[in-house]
């Protein structure tokens, strides 16, 4: 049930269509986690996952170190609203349960988008 600490959230996770090059990490990811996970957790997970995939593509040699992974940040967006097509940046402290309740509100897996955080 919603609100339980151990309840699960299902996510469909895609690269931001406007901010990420097509030849980048464009695969759709189907992810499950617990409702208490935050957007910051998700960003960190993505950095690790992409770094591991890049490392595997290079054959495991001279891959990315964990230190480098933690430096690489991703911003998470949701495409919500009546008209659609509007991407809202999600605050890192929001739990996925809150994102679900505040922006998604439908009984479907939560659809989120990611793009590398722009350096200031």
């Amino acid at each position, binding site marked *: 049930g919603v609100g339980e600490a151990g309840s699960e959230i299902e996510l469909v996770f895609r690269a931001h269509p406007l901010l990420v090059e097509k030849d980048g990490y464009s695969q759709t990811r189907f992810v499950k*986690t617990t409702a208490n996970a935050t957007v910051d957790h998700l960003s960190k997970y993505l950095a690790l996952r992409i770094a591991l995939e890049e490392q595997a593509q290079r054959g495991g040699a001279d891959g990315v170190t964990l230190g480098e992974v933690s430096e690489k940040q991703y911003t998470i967006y949701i495409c919500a609203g009546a008209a659609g097509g509007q991407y809202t940046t999600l605050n890192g402290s929001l739990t996925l349960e809150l994102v679900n309740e505040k922006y998604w509100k439908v009984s479907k*897996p939560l659809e989120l988008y990611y793009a590398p955080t722009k350096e200031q």
Partner: protein
Amino acid sequence: PSEITVTDITSNSITVTFREARCAEGFFRDRGDE
């Protein structure tokens, strides 16, 4: 790996686990006509 555990210090050091699959079929629950 299809499962990664993450601890985030900005989220009260809560540790959560993420599981990822290549497709939704058999992984996501079937919501039918809910």
